[in-house]
């Protein structure tokens, strides 16, 4: 492989890896945050019912 091809592949590999990595990371975090929010909301609703009774 010539040197220009090495630089070419490094350049594009960095672009693809960072873009896809960021997409996967963000999408995973959305799930995590939403799960946490949902749990707390359920807990809160359950408590509200208890205190109402």
């Amino acid at each position: 492989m010539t040197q220009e091809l090495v630089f070419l592949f490094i350049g594009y590999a960095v672009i693809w890896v960072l873009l896809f990595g960021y997409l996967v990371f963000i999408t995973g975090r959305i799930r995590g945050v939403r799960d946490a929010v949902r749990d707390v909301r359920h807990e809160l609703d359950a408590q509200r019912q208890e205190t109402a009774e």
Partner: protein
Amino acid sequence: MGLLGTALRRRAVGQPPLFGWRGLIVYAALLVLMSAALYMIFIYAPAERVQGDAHRLLYGHVAVAWLAFLAFGIVAFASVMYLWRRNPRWDSLAVASAEVGVLFTTLTLISGSVWGRHVWGVWWTWDPRLTTTLVLWFIYVAYLALRMYIDNVDTRRRVAAIFGIVGVVDVPIVWYSVEWWRSLHPVQSVTRAGLTAEMVLTLVVTVVAFTVFCFVLIRQRYLLERASDEGEGLRDIVRNRNDVLRQTGAPSAPEAGE
């Protein structure tokens, strides 16, 4: 949070993170566009007279640089809209675009550095275009850092919006740097570039593919920000409630983390 908050919360929770029918179409289109761009960059586009295959870095480099500019433009627009309307959704759009913009600026600097190492012979030099681009990167990293330093949510949004509007001043400076000052970096010129039809088509497809990718990233980051905002609001509710419950001796709810 009131009525507006309830409406926003519904919206943030009701939408899955780009799955289902619409998500499938978007991701399929993205896959097709990215594959097409990949094929065109590496096989369809001809080798360049002097640079040979290294010139293929042009397509990706130009695309990510353009999207960095676009993302910071969106930050400025969303910041203006936030200051005008005070709707937290504009603020979320601004954060999302700023983070994606920093990512694309990073990619611009890295791809440019690799290309420069081969063609110019150096990884980095303090040329006006490179220097102003690095300043652009620092401005929006500072923007993101600034947001972490301000606890009060309204102050944070307001200060960030002002910063987001001021920061975008560097975008035209980066663009015109190669015309205003002597630089190593070539000027951007479609007319002088002498690109063949194949090269232009490859550039167009690559730019379109990366633009779609950029919008997907901004959308996902926006949804994350909306969910985080909701968690922050909920945590306040839980804390207030726990304070009340503690006084009456009732068990308290767990506090929402991030």
